[in-house]
């Protein structure tokens, strides 16, 4: 028999604080709007996340406050924002891990929709179109009545590791290069390339990938500041992939026909 779990989850422990939540507010559509911090005071409750806190503010204090949540479970990547200077998923941020004063700002880099809401969707679609983030298969039509092609279990697991990105935008928001180059594909984009590069179902080779990321808007733009790696809410080893891709792309540039062709 296994011992019963003796302790109730710590979120249920009792603790009372009044949080001062300062939100950077701005409505780019309203000509009169000026960016400014607005303070909301909120009594903390057990297990409070920023999802709970912001909704309570909107429902009880200020119905005009704009922010984005969808799954509220850390799965969908909608709610990335800058929390006390650091990009992170708001839904997965417990207030008990934050100081009494919390400053919330929208992710930089992306188009601002209003207050904490930014248009990551538009940017991510553009990135996908540009990098063609889908399998470029050998045959146009696979016979789906037939047994599927085999794949080594370790390889499938390794591809999933690279597939876990939720396109939240934290890596781009934290990126120094993205500040300087608006066409930088970001760690998210390079992660996609690493993912399809690993996938034997994709027929593209390093020459093809070089065309997509072999420049300063791709792997050679990265300054290895590692912020993407540090802030990724899925703890993806982004810098490792970028370094790996950079080596491959350098080899590709040095010897575009390694097979001697």
């Amino acid at each position, binding site marked *: 028999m296994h011992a019963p*779990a003796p302790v109730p989850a710590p979120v249920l422990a009792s603790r009372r604080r009044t949080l001062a939540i300062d939100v950077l507010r701005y409505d780019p559509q309203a000509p009169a709007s000026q960016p400014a911090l607005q303070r909301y005071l909120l009594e903390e409750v057990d297990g409070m996340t920023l999802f709970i806190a912001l909704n309570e503010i*909107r429902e009880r204090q200020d119905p*005009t406050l704009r922010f984005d949540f*969808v799954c509220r479970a*850390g799965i969908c990547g909608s709610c990335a924002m800058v929390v006390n200077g650091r990009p992170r998923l708001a839904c997965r941020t417990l207030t008990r891990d934050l100081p009494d004063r919390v400053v919330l700002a929208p992710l930089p880099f992306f188009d601002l929709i209003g207050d904490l809401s930014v248009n990551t969707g538009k940017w991510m679609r553009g990135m996908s179109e540009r990098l063609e983030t*889908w399998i470029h298969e050998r045959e146009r039509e696979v016979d789906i009545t037939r047994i599927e*092609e085999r794949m080594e*279990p370790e390889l499938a697991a390794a591809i*999933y590791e690279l597939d876990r990105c939720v396109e939240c935008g934290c890596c781009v928001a934290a990126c120094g290069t993205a500040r300087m180059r608006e066409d930088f594909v970001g760690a998210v984009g390079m992660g996609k390339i690493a993912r399809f590069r690993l996938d034997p179902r994709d027929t593209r080779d390093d020459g093809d990938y070089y065309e997509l990321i072999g420049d300063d808007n791709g792997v050679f733009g990265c300054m290895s500041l590692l912020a993407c790696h540090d802030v990724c809410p899925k703890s993806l080893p982004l810098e490792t992939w970028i370094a790996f891709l950079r080596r491959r792309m350098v080899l590709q540039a040095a010897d575009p026909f390694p097979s001697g062709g």
Partner: protein
Amino acid sequence: MKTIVTDVLVIGGGLAGLRTAIGARRRGHAVIVLSLVPPKRSHSAAAQGGMQASLANVTKGIGDNEDVHFEDTVRGSDWGCDQVVARMFVNTSPKAVRELAAWGTPWSRIQRGEREAVINSQKVTIAERDEAHGLIAQRDFGGTKKWRTCYVSDGTGHAMLYTTGDQAIRHGVEVRERVEALALIHDGERCYGAVARNLVTGELIACLARATTIATGGAGRLYRVTTNAVICEGIGHALALETGVAALGNMEAVQFHPTGIFPAGILVTEGCRGDGGLLRDVDGRRFMPDYEPEKKELASRDVVSRRMEEHIRRGKGVPTRFGPHLWLDITLLGRGHIEHNLREVKEICESFLGIDPVEQWIPVRPAQHYTMGGVRTRHTGESPWLKGLFAAGEAACWDLHGFNRLGGNSVAETVVAGMIVGEFISDFCDAPENNVDLPMSLARAFVAREESKLKALLARPGGENAFRLLAETQETMTRFVGIFREADGLEEGVTHLQRLLQRSRDIGVTGKSWGNNPELVAAYRVQRMVKLAITIAYGAHQRTESRGAHFREDFPRRNDREWLKRTLAFWPDEAATLPHLRHEPLDVAKMELPPGWRGYGMKNHVDHPDTAARQSEVEAIRARMKGRDRFDIQEALMPCRDKLPASLTGRNERLGEPL
């Protein structure tokens, strides 16, 4: 007025909507998808556990095929489903998994040889066949005879959604993000598209289309505690209901998932129990074998949820200031398994509870999870009442799930329905008899009507608070229309909801912005949500039996004699506070699997008068055809070969079943 014209309009950018759109696009039609959020943020991403498809690759799946999957699905539905649709589904699901595999979904694969697994809390050794090495793996899930659930580690929905979302981009499917449909444009006979609102600018758009598809997912947010994302508010259901012409089917069939983490309601996957996790009570006792000696933790969701609440009522819950809960124990699965196969679960426990499930038990309680009811359609996905209106996925009731959906059948349904309905929509658009002149003046009238409703909300001084009305709706549904239901409570619930509906007609919005205004959004949505809540509560009140997830304490038996029927709800009078309900009988004489005991849960149902005759007929057919192949027998029992689109009629190859 801005007007967009397209062939196929798809409302909803989750898996069902995207796969439908890809299907129509591949057949050469122009497609526009309206999505509240970027498609990859849809609630489809939250499906952690897996997708049922009878590939029979793993050892524990040997012998599985469409027939076994069909029976599991029908039993799971408590005979409430449309068996022809269930057949179409089980035949297509293996194709859907394989299509996704070809598109790049990193399905977890089989490793040949022996491995350890936990079954029924016992460590066992399972040997996988050499010839299965590298094929797509299956895991165990509630309510199934064979291991049939294909999965991608524990991020199945995410991986499927990203694959499909990227395919939609590849196929040039146009997605209008942050755009919401407010009303369907129709003349009472044909649907011509929808009035849409840009959630950023507030602009109203007339989207005119030859075919319109509702693929908006479920309505979990009608309840206080739900596993559903915040966008799952049932607005697509309400759009159909508000036409006054199209009907919703079986809205009272609402599934509660046994393991929402307590108290937030965030889902931890059934895979936890499928892989060997146990439910324990305040004393640390594993209680499910007391109630369900055969299936234990892996009985169907409605049964497990009810047993858990029953156990809590007996005082066996763990008391907290938020109310009682039970424990989910996955510690016995070991760190390696949890960190590899159940990592999302571990992340959720760490991030939202601050516990490590390798060491500690997880506090859980059933939470609203799935909306079996939906826009009632034919097997083609089209509404029988409004030509050109289609529905697919959780928002639809073509009726795969009846009164209870099996785990792993929902995310499977999204892509399967998309594959099937996408073809039927294309056929519809291709058929010359469906040509239509899109009516601009009608579109203009619908846009004007929506505009005046929005202006009224903004103009009203004071008035009811939309957020408060929503909270009261959720409280009412949770209290009276939850896991246990009875006449007095349902009556009180309906009455209370009717009052809320009347109050919702007097909502005033304090922030006056026409554009990006979350309060205005809450206001017009809650008006629709209350209608939907009434439809559920009233349907539950009328249905004086228990079936699947619909459990009446005052009528605890399934009653096929009176209630082998589908509830249809119409809302023809906008000023009314109740829908019109009709009950459409299911034809026992045509069922491949006549009603019986599910194999778990209560045994004391009341038979339909035609059941015995049909049962002997089925047995006679089986006896007569002894020795014939299973496909011929199936066709003799319930003809459905001509039901699927031609491109999807092929048989499915398996290791033990070559084509």
